[in-house]
């Protein structure tokens, strides 16, 4: 049977089930066939501008009725007329009514700008004057915000900004004040944007069909020379962006509506914080330390010097005296080259990356449980889940676009369980917030697992067919000491039980976790318990379920995939396995080392002990971001030779013997792999700033200098090699990634994978591993009296890790310091007031920062960020590491307050 038809202006067209007249007509006659103002495909139909009105009849002769196309469903055999005289007159009248209050000066684009959607429509309809009297009241323009500007004079009351803030971001900062003709859009309690709770995601600006809402870059109407699609560098979500160029400069960033990852959405960092790229602080020349001073030298001199020094150290101290730290901010190809450089050219496995300080426990724990250390499912499945579990992840601030999607679900009543020591934004909408004491994830997960078993919520069929080790697991889980765990976590058992019921009873429960789960003494064990929870409830291998780590940096997944770890080479193959080595040797044309290398903490210890003589760091500021500042500083000062590739003179770079100026992600091509295993193309927007080179090119240059011939940095070429080396990249080619990339594993024929472990786990059967809670040594050293507080750390929305990029953008006007959050009860006990500068001391060191009273933390717990070098919070953090993955325990530091 053929599809049912409906008629547009007398001609039959096939209709799709459930579509509106607007989509139906636009699909057949093109996007402009029916004019609209209030409609935005990213938003629900609203039906207020009425410009999309059409005549509709149930037969060719039946009486016609006027209907708004945007929210009226098309029906079979319906007759739709898009431009009858009365419809044209209606549209004309509406436009005239609008124009009577619209400033005549805003009818044309500003010189050198593109027209707004409204200006274009005015042109198209050929209406430029109005017969109706004006009631316009001139209003002042709000330019208080560093990015978003609001000029109500150009408002045409389409509500799109209000709806975008609600339906996309979920912040609801905007509303309408009053009613009728004089009602107007307000920001918060009728305040300025700067004063409001606006998170500057830019969704309102993007959807506004005039320049009532615009941004400092005039993005919407910017007349660019060129527009380049690329991937954001600010977190593991991997939003697609479109960079607007003029005269060779990056002038604005737009988003791509068709992006599968972000559907046109972005956050304040991705959309607006690009000004760092040509900041005067950018390093423009290689620097070589001469007589204790870093001095500008040529690339040849720098590279020759490095090659000579590395050769010398290798000959004098042996191959193990050199190590490298790669960068999760760099591309897959660059990471691949870096690890290859260490393994093939230097000849050891001393290669590690920032995953060591973040998600190494995820990789380890999930590999143990499932066989694959990556997200099992995809972000696009969030709407399919009927229960969300978020553990140790403040996605609203650290992964804003994904966080907004979770929040949208929770606001609509989908059960949300948050396990977090802080009252993060998501807890506002959570069904259950389990506010545990930092460092007790394992205890809490044990309680949760206990109740899932006790309440009979185990999916016995799944467990029986697809997993192993459950009997022992069950026995251990049922043997926990609930009284003790309740006391340790500080969370009442009833609340945990409630969470267990929600998670266990859901059809599709989807879990997410961040560094609040991993950066602990028992980090990997916690990950295994989360994996166990998913398996025991059958929440694996289907849409809308699974275990999904939220990756912190843009390419932390990719860096690990490329072999940036001392025990596994590219593709997570075990370097101690001779067969694996044979595979690598065949592809690299060179022997590879068999001995496991050093992790980052291992490197720093080796440096401190004098065993490590040379360290090469690509794009990481470990002095600011790794724990125990004094220890790291000592280690870095002990190595004889330190090479750092960087954009800016970071804390770490300032200690280097050679600093190599790198190109930013806007200046090179390659691929990033986001947190859902999606390999996406990063496209070069501008050439590297003069004097800088892409990190990959630097690796190529040094490899060539040290005797391993390597073609120039070319992502397409390297990807071909990676596809041969890394099994799950088999079908990936630069040319077949398209706009939205592919999710690995990608088979040879190019087929990608949205959901892992559908039929069987990577390791065959899923493995249950129970772990009892063990207190971190941080808190066991018998000095609770001396260090009565637990300090935990995290990110704020406005800044990205060490802040070297975001601090050099107008984001600094939104947040210009690290603050210490302290519960008002604690503050009162110490006589601390808001904004007061106080000191913090731990066993490792001390620092001073300003206090902010907040019930985001419970008494006894303090929170701060690590974006600003002057605070250097990692003076305080400790050397306690995850038992399995060597990841530092950033999230628990015993501290004392000093006023």
């Amino acid at each position: 049977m053929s599809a049912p038809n409906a008629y547009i202006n007398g001609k039959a067209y096939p209709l799709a089930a459930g579509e509106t007249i607007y989509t139906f007509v636009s699909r057949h006659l093109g996007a402009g066939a029916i004019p609209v103002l209030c409609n935005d495909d990213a938003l629900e139909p609203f039906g207020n501008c009425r410009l999309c009105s059409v005549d509709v009849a149930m037969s060719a002769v039946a009486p016609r009725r006027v209907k708004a196309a945007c929210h009226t469903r098309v029906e079979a055999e319906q007759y739709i007329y898009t431009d009858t005289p009365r419809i044209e007159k209606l549209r004309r009248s509406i436009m005239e009514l609008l124009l009577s209050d619209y400033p005549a000066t805003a009818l044309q684009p500003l010189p050198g700008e593109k027209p707004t959607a409204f200006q274009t429509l005015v042109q198209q309809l050929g209406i430029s004057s109005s017969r109706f009297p004006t009631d316009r009241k001139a209003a002042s323009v709000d330019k208080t915000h560093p990015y978003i500007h609001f000029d109500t004079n150009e408002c045409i009351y389409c509500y799109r900004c209000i709806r975008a803030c609600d339906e996309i971001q979920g912040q609801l900062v905007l509303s309408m004040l009053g009613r009728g003709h004089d009602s107007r859009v307000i920001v918060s309690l009728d305040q300025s944007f700067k004063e409001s709770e606006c998170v500057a995601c830019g969704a309102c600006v993007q959807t506004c069909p005039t320049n009532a809402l615009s941004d400092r870059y005039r993005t919407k109407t910017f007349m660019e020379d060129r527009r380049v699609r690329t991937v954001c560098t600010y977190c593991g979500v991997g939003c697609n962006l479109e960079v607007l160029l003029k005269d060779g400069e990056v002038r604005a960033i737009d988003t791509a509506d068709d992006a599968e990852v972000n559907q046109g959405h972005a956050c304040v960092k991705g959309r607006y914080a690009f000004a760092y790229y040509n900041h005067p602080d950018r390093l423009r020349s290689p620097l070589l330390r001469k007589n204790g001073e870093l001095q500008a030298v040529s690339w040849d001199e720098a590279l020759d010097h490095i090659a000579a020094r590395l050769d010398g150290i290798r000959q004098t101290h042996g191959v193990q005296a050199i190590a490298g730290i790669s960068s999760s901010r760099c591309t897959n190809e660059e990471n691949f080259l870096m690890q290859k450089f260490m393994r093939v050219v230097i000849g050891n496995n001393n290669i590690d990356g920032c995953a060591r300080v973040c998600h190494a426990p995820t990789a380890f724990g999930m590999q143990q449980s499932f066989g694959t250390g990556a997200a099992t499912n995809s972000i696009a499945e969030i709407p399919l889940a009927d229960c969300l579990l978020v553990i140790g992840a403040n996605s609203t601030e650290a992964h804003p676009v994904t966080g907004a999607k979770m929040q949208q679900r929770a606001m609509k009543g989908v059960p949300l369980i948050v396990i977090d020591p802080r009252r993060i934004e998501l807890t506002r909408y959570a069904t259950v917030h389990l506010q545990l004491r930092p460092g007790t994830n394992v205890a809490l997960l044990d309680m949760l697992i206990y109740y899932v078993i006790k309440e009979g919520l185990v999916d016995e069929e799944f467990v029986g067919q697809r997993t192993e080790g459950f009997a022992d697991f069950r026995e251990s889980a049922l043997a926990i000491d609930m009284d003790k765990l309740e006391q340790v976590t500080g969370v009442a058992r009833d609340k945990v039980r409630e969470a267990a019921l929600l998670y266990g009873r859901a059809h599709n429960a989807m879990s997410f976790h961040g560094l609040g789960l991993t950066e602990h003494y028992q980090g990997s064990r916690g990950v295994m318990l989360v994996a166990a929870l998913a398996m025991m409830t059958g929440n694996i291998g289907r849409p809308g379920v699974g275990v999904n780590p939220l990756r912190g940096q843009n390419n932390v997944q990719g860096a690990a995939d490329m072999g940036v770890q001392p025990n596994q080479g590219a593709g997570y193959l075990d370097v101690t396995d001779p067969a694996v080595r044979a595979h690598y040797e065949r592809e690299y044309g060179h022997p590879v080392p068999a001995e496991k290398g050093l992790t980052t903490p291992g490197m720093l210890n080796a440096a401190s002990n004098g065993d490590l003589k040379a360290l090469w760091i690509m794009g990481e500021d470990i002095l600011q971001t790794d724990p125990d500042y004094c220890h790291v500083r000592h280690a870095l000062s002990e190595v004889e030779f330190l090479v750092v590739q960087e954009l800016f003179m970071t804390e770490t770079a300032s200690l280097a013997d050679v600093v190599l100026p790198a190109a930013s992600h806007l200046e090179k091509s390659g691929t990033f792999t986001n947190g859902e295993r999606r390999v996406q193309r990063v496209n070069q927007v501008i050439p590297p700033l003069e004097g800088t080179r892409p990190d990959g090119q630097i690796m190529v240059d040094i490899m060539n200098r040290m005797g391993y011939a390597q073609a120039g940095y070319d992502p397409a070429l390297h990807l071909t090699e990676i596809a041969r080396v890394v099994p799950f990249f088999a079908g990936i080619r630069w040319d077949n990634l398209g706009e939205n990339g592919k999710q690995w594993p990608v088979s040879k024929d190019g087929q990608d994978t949205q959901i892992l472990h559908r039929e069987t786990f990577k390791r065959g059967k899923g493995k249950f591993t129970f772990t009892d809670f063990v207190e971190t040594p941080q808190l066991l050293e018998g000095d609770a009296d001396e260090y009565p507080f637990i300090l935990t750390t995290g990110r704020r929305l406005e800044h990205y890790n060490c802040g070297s990029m975001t601090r050099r953008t107008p984001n600094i006007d939104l947040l210009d310091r690290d603050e210490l959050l302290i519960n008002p009860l604690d503050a009162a006990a110490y006589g601390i007031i808001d904004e007061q500068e106080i000191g913090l001391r731990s066993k490792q060191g001390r620092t001073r920062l300003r206090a902010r009273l907040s019930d985001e933390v419970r008494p006894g717990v303090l929170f701060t960020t690590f974006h600003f070098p002057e605070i250097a919070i990692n003076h305080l953090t400790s050397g306690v590491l995850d038992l399995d993955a060597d990841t530092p325990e950033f999230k628990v530091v015993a501290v004392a307050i000093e006023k």
Partner: protein
Amino acid sequence: MSKNLRSLSARHVEGQTLFQALAEAVENTSMPLSQQLRELAEERLVSRASLLGASSFYDFLQVENLNKRAYVCNGTCCLLAGKQDEVRAGLAARYKDDEIGEATCLGHCYRAGSFQEGEQTYDDEYRPGASLDSIEFPYFAHIDQPLFAAPVTAIDDYYQQVLQAPADIQEQLSRSNLRGRGGAGFPFADKLAGCTAAAGTQKYVVCNADEGDPGAFSDRYLLEEQPHRVLAGMLAAGLATGADTGFVYIRAEYPLAQRRIAEAIAAFEQTPAAATSRFRFRIVRGAGAYICGEETALLNSIEGLRPEVRTRPPYPTQAGLFGQPTLLSNVETFAAVPWILEHGGAAFAAMGTAQSTGTKLVCLDYGFNQPGVHEVAMGTPLRQVIEEYGGGFRWPMKAVQVGGPLGGVVPIDRIAGLTLDCESFAAAGFELGHAGIVSIPESFPMIDFLRHLFAYMAAESCGKCLPCRLGTRKAHTMLTAASKTQPLDSAAFTDLLEALEYGSLCGLGSALPLPVRNILTYFATELHDYFSEVADT
């Protein structure tokens, strides 16, 4: 509108609703408004902007009205009766200028010249302590078997008799051919069946007691004098559809109605019928916004959202209050239900005409010699209602407006041909609406009537759809500026009416052109000089 806000508001549906909490917060002047709203936003998980956006919509929650001590009725009848200046002068002696506000309308159109002080309503014959509440409500029955004459006495028995099987309730209502009394005339049984068939475990019954039309006070009569009939009708609708909760949304201007309904609910709750049915009632007090009489705006209002009109479909029977299937109807419609269940649908259908069955409460305003609520059979000649039941006009009239501000304006010489039913009015180019009758004196200039009409509608437009938001104001500005020397642009005005009719999202905008065109047609001579050409509508 916002699914997020609706869902967040629904989290507190069992307790104090968001709207009630918002009104309470705004009216609590002991703390700054911004602080109140911040705290409420935190408590209810909604945003500050959405709270201020919602509260600022309502007359009585606007900051500039929080100090008002008295509200003068600015409804059409009070205007036409010419008593407002006198009333204002009286109040000026007791209050400062900015302590006196305006409300439209207080629903005492049979007295006119009314104003409200606190919870009491008075008229121009003001005597402290003796409010109009103490005066008997003028009700007159003009049929053998009036539905709404006798007060309900044996309360439990009364409720017991509506506790019938859902299918029986549906059956009797289908037979009765009862049509919605709010103005649209939609068959009530169809609405009931639609809500019954809608999927959903939670359903609601909502009574629209937001009788905002100037010239209409029949709902107020029922709420104050016959509250059990209204509640029992809602109860029956709840049983038939599977709803367990009934909201009575009563406008702020009707404080006595709120008290009487509250008392009636309390009495109901003591009955065995309440225990058997497990049905519960809740009152929601409006806050001064005419548009809340529009069903979707009313639902948004209860939810604490801005009471802007929703797009339809979905209709409330499918997705109404808090997104759940909802049977929403008007006071008089619900009040007729118990009678139908007691006497059978056929008995109801036997009254009135074939298509417009039953009786109708007709409100006659101060311009009649016998003003008040008159219960008449549907189909009664209009002339009989006016001359016989109403005792004729108090002074010479040139037209009557029937069915509220959006109803037709019938010139005196067209009264003779009309009977009181939907069909007769529609055929003649008018609208029966709720059949309230406002009489327009000979001496009252029609240009001023038009100005008043548009001023009122511009003030009450929710502002969501552009034709109504902009059109009502522009039309008012044009009419206000029009004079015999500077007539308004007729072609533009005609196009504006057409934009309102075809483009508006709800009846406020789309029905407004009807009375305007009636006036332009029947009073073309009087208005001739104000228009650039003779209006060709």
